[in-house]
């Protein structure tokens, strides 16, 4: 073979190699150039694109599938962090969970939505046969501080004198900064009989700050969502602690007994009730109102729903007052707002929490994990009968009166006392003409 031929075949082979390589690149990176659809990356788990239009986050997924956009910025940072970070390479799963939390909390700017990894899923411990216990505290995130909304009656948290408004800055010496409420609750819960140490910061009424470590033994916290007693002169106080799966039945049982007593007046105590399951609200409000709107829900992708009084109440005519405080939140605020909007009961106590969002918890399966992760999403809001969104606003009481830590220490309850006096003097309807405007 002549030198010329060797050179020629060398050039041809190089040419073929270049052609093959460019083919590979086009086939891999830009299949649309040669009329091929992008391979299915499986990014849309549900596979349905019907509602993608006008939804930028879904449209992005479709473009990503087609290879029209990339997620490269994310992966560039991922690679940088995995090769440069002091704690490199990090745990890939924890990085993914962090990304999910960041997507919800920074991306959607929503402190309520949260992701709970499989290992913190409360079902995990139960499946392992360990009896789960807690301390009976309801938490929320306020100004990014993990804040106590309420303690359940006779719970370890109440015995340890945690109060509404206390900020928990660490759980077992792990800072709560950046922790979601869901995650914090999972960390506070644990095996029965074990202890958890909380660092609690309290802003006192004179403007000073008190800090302390509290070690609390976990107990099986019974969900006693309701209790009631007679105060004398035919006045009954019904205390609702929370709204959960048992509330409806407990309410019906209690109401049956109380109705037979034909009470002179009822005090509905919703203080430190953080809400929960919205289901029992309709039945409770319907016991006090003959008709009317209770609340409206607006949920993404669903029709607005108006929830109305059923018209089968036990106490339609019974004089009524409602007790509230800053721990009265969510479903408890729906009850309070409905009874106030229809001028059925004055609110005695202090400004309510102001939580108007509806959340739903979904399972997210994770490869190689027995239990799914959980994601809690804010899916909508509820509005009062007057059409007001209470988020961040709360309900203003008709009579502003507070139970101070000192009162609690000495078993005094000036709020309940005030409510009792109002009912005894029959002045519970005096508030409706004078009150100007709405909660603001």
């Amino acid at each position, binding site marked *: 073979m002549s030198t010329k031929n060797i050179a020629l075949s060398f050039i041809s082979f190089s040419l073929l190699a270049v052609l093959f390589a460019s083919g590979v690149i086009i086939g*891999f990176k830009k299949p649309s150039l040669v009329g091929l659809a992008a391979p299915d990356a499986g990014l849309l788990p549900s596979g349905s694109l019907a509602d993608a239009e006008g939804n930028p986050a879904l449209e992005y997924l479709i473009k990503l599938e087609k290879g029209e956009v990339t997620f490269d910025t994310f992966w560039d940072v991922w690679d*940088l962090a995995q090769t440069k970070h002091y704690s490199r390479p990090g745990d890939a799963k924890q990085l993914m969970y962090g990304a999910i939390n960041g997507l919800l909390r920074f991306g959607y700017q929503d402190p309520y939505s949260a992701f709970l990894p499989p290992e913190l899923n409360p079902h995990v411990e139960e499946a392992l046969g360990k009896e789960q216990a807690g301390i009976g505290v309801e938490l929320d995130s306020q100004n990014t501080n993990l804040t106590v909304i309420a303690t359940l009656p006779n719970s370890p948290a109440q015995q340890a004198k945690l109060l509404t408004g206390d900020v928990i800055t660490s759980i077992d010496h792990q800072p709560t900064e950046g922790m979601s409420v869901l995650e914090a609750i999972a960390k506070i819960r644990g095996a029965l009989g074990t202890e958890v140490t909380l660092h609690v910061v309290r802003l006192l009424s004179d403007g000073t700050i008190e800090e302390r470590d509290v070690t609390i033994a976990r107990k099986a916290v019974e969900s006693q969502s309701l209790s009631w007693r007679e105060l004398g002169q035919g006045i009954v106080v019904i205390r609702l602690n929370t709204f959960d799966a048992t509330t409806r039945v407990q309410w019906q049982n209690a109401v049956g007994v109380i109705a037979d007593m034909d009470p002179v007046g009822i005090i509905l105590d919703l203080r430190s009730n953080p809400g929960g399951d919205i289901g029992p609200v309709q039945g409770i409000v319907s016991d006090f109102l003959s008709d009317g709107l209770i609340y409206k829900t607006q949920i993404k992708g669903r029709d607005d729903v108006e929830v109305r009084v059923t018209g089968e109440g036990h106490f339609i005519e019974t004089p009524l007052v409602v007790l509230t405080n800053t721990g009265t939140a969510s479903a408890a605020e729906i009850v309070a707002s409905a009874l106030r909007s229809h001028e059925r009961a004055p609110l005695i106590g202090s400004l309510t929490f102001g939580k108007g969002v509806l959340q739903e918890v979904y399972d997210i399966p994770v490869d190689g994990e027995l239990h799914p992760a959980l994601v809690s999403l804010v899916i909508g809001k509820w509005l009062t009968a007057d059409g007001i969104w209470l988020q961040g606003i709360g309900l203003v009481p008709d009579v502003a009166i507070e139970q101070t830590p000192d009162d609690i220490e000495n078993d005094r309850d000036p709020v309940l006392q005030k409510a009792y006096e109002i009912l005894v003097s029959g002045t519970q309807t005096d508030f409706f003409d004078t009150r100007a405007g709405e909660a603001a």
Partner: protein
Amino acid sequence: MKKFFLVLACVVLGAGVFAAGVWMGYAHPEQIGLTDSRNNRTVKTLTKNTASGLASLETTYEEIDFAPFWQVWELAARQHLEEEDLQTADLIYGAINGMLQFGFKDQFSSFLPPDVNEIASDDLKGKFSGVGIELEMQEGDLTIVAPLSDTPAAKAGLLAGDVIRTVDGDSIEDLTVLEAVELIRGSIGTTVTLGITRITDDRKVSEFDVEVTRDIIDVESVKWEDRGDGMYSIKVRNFAADTMSEWDRAVDAISAARPRGIILDLRNNAGGYVTGAVHFISEFVPSGVAVRQDFGAGEVKNLYVYGDGKLVGVPVVVLVNRGTASASEMVAGALQDYGVAKLIGERTFGKGVLQEIFDLEIPGEAQSASVRIVTARWYTPKERTVEFVGLQPDIEVKTTIEQYEREEDPVLERAMEEVR
């Protein structure tokens, strides 16, 4: 004719090879090592090779299933309460920040989108239009580390430790430091109202609004003063790009005057480049380690003093407070370790990590983004860390708000006594 067929054969062969290439790239990328387009659900990622026994040194790749991320992405896209003008870019940036901050449990690593990045790089250059405050996130609160002197913020009476709750009436909850800075900065001559929470030494809490008029903040890093009797004070505000040359000019002037004592004021100095710290330490310490850096995974790198200090042997004291952070803590810590200087004032901030800044081009964006990653922990020459604990001053002197308002400086006064 023969030639024609030859050319045809070549073209067909070429097309065939090209098509084969397309097919390989499209249908079987993994066969030629192209598994990672990373738009996929399964992602190759670095992982520690714990089996090798050299856990910290060797890394291998592992596949993880990224499906949960995309599942939540889709779920949130469909179900999350409608947001006004939701931007997909913000979701991606949020995911990146979450990956860094929650994934590495590290509040100092963060991603800066293009608009915010521009502000941050102005900072390191040292000139912008704003109110003149250095900010940090402390326990979830946006806290003023340092009001720069002779700026609108200082004139308005803002203090180190003040927490900013609102900017122009809007809550800044959930914003990052740089997003908040973006709101506070603006055109020269305009005003911004900051909602402040202040906790004083006797633990009283007060809340009030402060209106501040924005001005050009030309951060002059180094300012020195002849205090008489051969005493000189040098105030250093930060460790920016031009700090070292400003420092050299100051030191040249002072050393020519044969100083009898130096007061190095690092109060409200939030730090900056590490090289600046080494430069400063070298001026006072004749030999030895200036800063120890631990880059993790067993990678330790010590930075040594240059050995040409102009102020070696001159009595020196260092003024510190809770606004003394990062690079300025390196200087204060090293001088304390070598017994060269006493620290006077209050406990320092306590930032014992180093961040590196990496620029990132974003497709479709004119400006680049950047990511700050905590790449190392640093230690003083005596291997102390300041992380969370700060440096305890040798002589504790506090400035009360009343003294501050009367423009008294008991720390400086105490320092003058000490160095004499």
